[in-house]
């Protein structure tokens, strides 16, 4: 029962709801705010009255509002934004502050205005201040006027009907008065809806035109995502380095010491029984093996040499350990960001591991050089080729590593060889 009656009740009560009256108040204030830009449109028309169809007045009609939009756009927008928040608690989102804004903010007046003229935001804001906003306000004002007039007329017609056609304040045929009262009632019921709708339109226009555009929102999101991804990659990198340090300062030192002591015991305790000597020898060998495994593990985490001495030194370590003979040429005169260094290091490491595993190559060549803000790597081998990024998980891993810092990865590997992997890593995010 209530579900049917409630909407009907809401409709009947519409003109007396607080929201409707508040929206009417909002329309009045908002219209007042519109008066300034509207006045700027209207003012030039006054020229026509003085000097009809005179060139300066035509120019004034066209340029004065535009000039106002460019000069006062940001101030008008700020005014709107704070007014809407104060009156209605409505948040008009702010356009993002871009590098472009920052650059033009400190510029002298004329270049600043030129930059503003070229910025699409200026024209979207002008569109709101000169057209969309005033139009919505106009609808609201007309509806509001009809509402108030309807109420007054209705109040006047009721006694006219009651006192008959010869009432001294209004002389009117009763049937006409009845019809008029009915029309007034309809207007009184409908006008509040229109007022509320005009406020909704106004807010929507303001949000769409004064807030960030879709392109700006997307650009902002891309910046956010790039930053957060870089932070995640850096954090993972830092974590690996921390683990590496812990292992080096802890387990590795202890193992070296243990192996050394076992070796010493083995070298000095010559008069032990045979089986004790064997056990000692085995323990020593195992300690040395554990040490070797730990060293490889630490290298795989984050090689200290990379952090201390840079790519050149770290890569020559990998090249030297590769089972396929490697020629290495590194021309990186300055240190690149640690994350990029790590990606480059591990990419070369994985690429050479792939060469050793699949390529059946007799030689490989690694070149690393700095090309402006790009770090380029190339790993080439003289093997059988036929490497396919779609199949091998090793190659997918390489591509993902490159992508983690917005880098590019390309492989040329015809069947029969040779295979070349090319990577470019941007050094500035």
């Amino acid at each position, binding site marked *: 029962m209530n579900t049917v009656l409630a909407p009907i009740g809401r409709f009947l009560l519409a003109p007396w709801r607080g929201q409707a009256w508040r929206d009417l108040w909002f329309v009045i204030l908002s219209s007042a705010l519109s008066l300034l830009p509207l006045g700027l449109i209207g003012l030039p028309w006054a020229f026509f009255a003085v000097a009809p169809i005179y060139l300066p007045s035509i120019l004034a009609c066209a340029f004065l509002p535009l000039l106002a939009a460019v000069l006062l756009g940001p101030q008008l927008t700020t005014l709107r934004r704070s007014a809407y928040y104060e009156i209605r608690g409505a948040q008009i989102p702010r356009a993002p502050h871009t590098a472009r804004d920052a650059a033009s903010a400190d510029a002298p007046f004329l270049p600043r205005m030129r930059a503003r003229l070229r910025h699409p935001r200026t024209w979207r804001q002008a569109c709101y201040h000169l057209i969309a906003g005033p139009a919505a306000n106009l609808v609201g004002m007309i509806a509001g006027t009809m509402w108030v007039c309807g109420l007054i007329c209705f109040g006047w017609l009721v006694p006219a009907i009651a006192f008959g056609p010869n009432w001294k304040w209004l002389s009117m045929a009763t049937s006409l008065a009845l019809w008029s009262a009915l029309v007034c009632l309809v207007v009184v019921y409908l006008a509040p809806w229109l007022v509320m709708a005009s406020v909704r339109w106004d807010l929507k226009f303001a949000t769409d035109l004064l807030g960030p555009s879709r392109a700006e929102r997307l650009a902002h999101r891309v910046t956010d995502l790039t930053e957060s991804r870089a932070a995640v990659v850096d954090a993972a990198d830092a974590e690996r380095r921390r683990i590496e340090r812990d292992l080096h300062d802890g387990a590795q030192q202890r193992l*070296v010491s243990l192996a*050394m*002591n076992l070796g*010493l015991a*083995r070298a000095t305790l010559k008069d032990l029984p045979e089986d004790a000597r064997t056990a000692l020898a085995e323990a020593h060998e195992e300690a040395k093996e554990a040490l070797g495994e730990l060293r490889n593990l630490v290298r795989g985490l984050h090689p200290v*040499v990379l952090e201390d001495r840079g790519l050149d030194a770290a890569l020559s370590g990998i090249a030297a350990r590769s089972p396929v003979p490697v*020629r*290495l040429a590194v021309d990186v005169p300055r240190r690149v960001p640690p994350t990029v260094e790590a990606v480059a290091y591990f990419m070369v490491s994985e690429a050479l591991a792939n060469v050793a595993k699949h390529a059946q190559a007799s030689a490989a060549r690694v070149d690393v050089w700095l090309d402006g803000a790009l770090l380029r790597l190339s790993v080439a081998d003289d093997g059988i080729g036929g490497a396919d990024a779609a199949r091998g998980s090793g190659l997918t891993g390489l591509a993902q590593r490159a992508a983690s810092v917005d880098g590019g990865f390309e492989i040329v590997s015809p069947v029969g060889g040779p295979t070349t992997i090319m990577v470019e890593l941007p050094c500035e995010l």
Partner: protein
Amino acid sequence: MRTVIAEDSVLLRTGLTKLLETTGFEVAAAVDDAAGLLAAVERHRPELVIADVRMPPTFTDEGIRAALVVRRQWPEVAIMVLSQYVEERYAADLLSTSTTGVGYLLKDRVADVDVFLESLRRVAAGGTALDPEVVAQLLVRRQNTPLDRLTGRERQVLGLMAEGRSNAGIAEKLVVSESAVAKHINSIFTKLGLPASEGDHRRVLAVLRFLERASPTV
């Protein structure tokens, strides 16, 4: 043999001290930083210094820099540098003045007590001891040098020469006869264009030629 140890890890420092003392070395001082090392060398005038590369305060290459100072001021002191990783530039720096009485080993080699002690004695006697990994890294370096003309076997032999082995040691390692090693070495001398002179001098020159490539300034 009077020795000074510089190593910042307490565990390794005491371990090394114990190892050396039980195997006939005399540990005159065991310090934990580069300044301490220089002071100890000044005071004790050891025959051998064992230094870690990474030491306080910056944990980068204090050990190498201290070793270079020792080499300049007390050229008669043999130096064994221990490093957590291979950086051929360190090796090149160390060997830039002379190739006698100097060693560069990975820290882990300490675990191989016999080999480590032998390397120490060799260095103290004026020889060299380069870690096999250092040697391997030097081989992947720059191109278009006379070294490119060496065969794989000759490179191996040259690498072992750089590690500080004698002809007999190389022959043992490669499981070939000593005369075969001598033949390889002669071929290396020819290909590197080293003048016919006294054998040991040419040996040092060949190793230097080999190591030069690790140092960009040469």
